């Protein structure tokens, strides 16, 4: 006679069958002496230790591989030249000054106006079971790209000065119609922008285990800090930009913003009105992300000594109020120290 199968379930089966009670049972152990921990063995406020490798791609101007737990992201930065004559509605900085707009107001927007930073995120097929082959970019990938793009601009980490390719005119016999606007300029040398570097920032998820934005952001930051732009000069005779392989200049990066995402796990699966027990899960993995509605992302920079917040993004629930937000900012500060140690 066959032996009776046991009536209790193994924990792996329990996790598959009812993930929410499984995570709840881990966070709320029946025996009070065991500390509450997540299914991945971490404490609620414990994030995964990041590992960063730079310059691993040979054909990119800068690259980085970032690994936090089982989330692995590779980012490559590749610069391409863009002639100002090829930009529709190009207005040189001098022309804007003449028009009476402040130089600071106009110059800060060159990155955005001419789309000099082009980030793209790809979630590779097979990096997680829910990414199917042969489908258009998912909502998640598109949302991540948009967030990355707007954070790159609003955090202002790339200095546009490093992306300009200048040409200093020696004589005035060049009679080029594109240079007409320089006529009013008094200063000698007639240095003008002939072209820009456009940075194509490609992010590929090799393995996806939750918290994609933090990892992608860290990869972009590490890759940009690793980026070296080749020396470029404008060749007057051929009217092209020529680059040399020698002495590439490192790209100037301002600050070190670090993103920290926290998911809110509520004890009640169907969120009822008011209260209830909840846990803040810092750096959630894929299982936790699928069970949490509310996520908060805080981006901080402490390079100047005091904490500067560069972005807060909270959606999907009502648990986090201003008090918890303050706590999450201090969690993000700790996370910043971790990344600072790895990045520099």
């Amino acid at each position, binding site marked *: 006679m066959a032996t009776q199968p046991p009536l209790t379930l193994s924990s792996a089966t329990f996790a598959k069958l009812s993930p929410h009670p499984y995570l709840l049972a881990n966070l709320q152990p029946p025996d009070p002496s065991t500390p509450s921990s997540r299914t991945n063995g971490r404490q609620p406020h414990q994030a995964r230790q990041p590992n960063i490798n730079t310059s691993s791609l040979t054909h990119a101007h800068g690259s980085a591989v970032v690994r936090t737990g089982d989330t692995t992201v590779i980012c490559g930065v590749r610069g391409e030249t863009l002639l100002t004559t090829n930009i529709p*509605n190009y207005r040189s900085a001098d022309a804007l000054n003449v028009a009476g707009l402040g130089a600071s107001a106009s110059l800060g927007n060159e990155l955005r106006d001419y789309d000099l930073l082009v980030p793209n995120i790809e979630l590779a097929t097979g990096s997680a079971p829910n990414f199917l082959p042969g489908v258009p970019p998912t909502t998640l990938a598109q949302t991540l790209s*948009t967030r990355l793009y707007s954070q790159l601009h609003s955090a202002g980490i790339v200095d546009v000065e490093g992306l300009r390719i200048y040409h200093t005119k020696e004589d005035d016999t060049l009679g080029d119609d594109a240079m007409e606007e320089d006529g009013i300029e008094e200063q000698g040398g007639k240095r003008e922008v002939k072209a820009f570097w456009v940075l194509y920032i490609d992010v590929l998820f090799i393995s996806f285990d939750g918290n994609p934005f933090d990892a992608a952001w860290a990869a972009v930051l590490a890759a940009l800090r690793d980026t070296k732009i080749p020396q470029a000069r404008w060749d007057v005779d051929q009217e092209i930009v020529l680059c040399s392989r020698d002495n590439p200049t490192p790209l100037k990066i301002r600050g070190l913003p670090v993103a920290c995402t926290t998911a809110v796990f509520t004890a009640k699966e169907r969120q009822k009105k008011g209260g209830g027990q909840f846990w803040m899960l810092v750096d959630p993995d894929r299982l936790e992300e699928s069970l949490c509605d509310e996520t908060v992302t805080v981006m901080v920079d402490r390079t100047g000594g005091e904490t500067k917040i560069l972005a807060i993004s909270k959606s999907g629930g009502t648990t986090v109020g201003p008090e918890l937000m303050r706590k999450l900012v201090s969690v993000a500060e700790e996370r910043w120290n971790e990344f600072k140690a790895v990045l520099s």
Partner: protein
Amino acid sequence: MTVNTEPQALISHLPKADGSATFSYAGYTVVGAVNGPIEVQRRDELPEEAAVDVIVRPAAGVGGTRERHLESLIQSTLRQIILVNNFPRTLIQVILQIIVAPENEYVNAKITQASSNLPILPALLQTAILSLLSSTLPLTATLTSTALAIVPDQGGSNIVLNPTAREVEQSQSFHVFAFTSHNELILAESEGSFTMKEWDDVYARAYSQCCPPALSSDNDDAMIDDQRSAGSDLRHFTRSTMEQKIVSDLYWK
């Protein structure tokens, strides 16, 4: 460009949709339509709750990545408000068409832009709520949403409510908050550079804007004067708009 300072709304004006609303405020006009609960595609079906689908369509061109970003923010917010458990294995579709968005006269507008478009979020959320109310889907709460910017001002800085496109461009930081009618913070999006202290100030300002103390009949005048100075009371606006609609619908009785 004319910016209407008072919010305006038109409820249930689309005959084919289950619920619809047009909302205009602070230079934005959005048309919203809600269909639901309707049949859901097999792959989107959720066994225990209704799937909420939000579609945002821009005023010009086709939707791109930034519309997907807005959609995901609105979807996660509305999912908390609609009683999705009442309609398992169905779909609730919210379509938001932007009609008018204020332009920044100082820069050339680009139709396709990859960056996020947070300033329009309050108008979209408000339209979605009015459309949902018009469709009479059961909700746990309504919500009110507001946008604020911290604009540098002669050495100091100033919190500007419902900033113009130019003010957003010049601002140090830009914030969008949404509160439920139970005075809980449901959505917070902030961009730019700011400190925790500034965020607290902006939060307090947004809270007083979105969660005003309930109007009591005896000191009506004083309260209304207070709110005039601070901007329009959107929660009261939502309520009075729906009351008017119900009164006109029940006129035949």
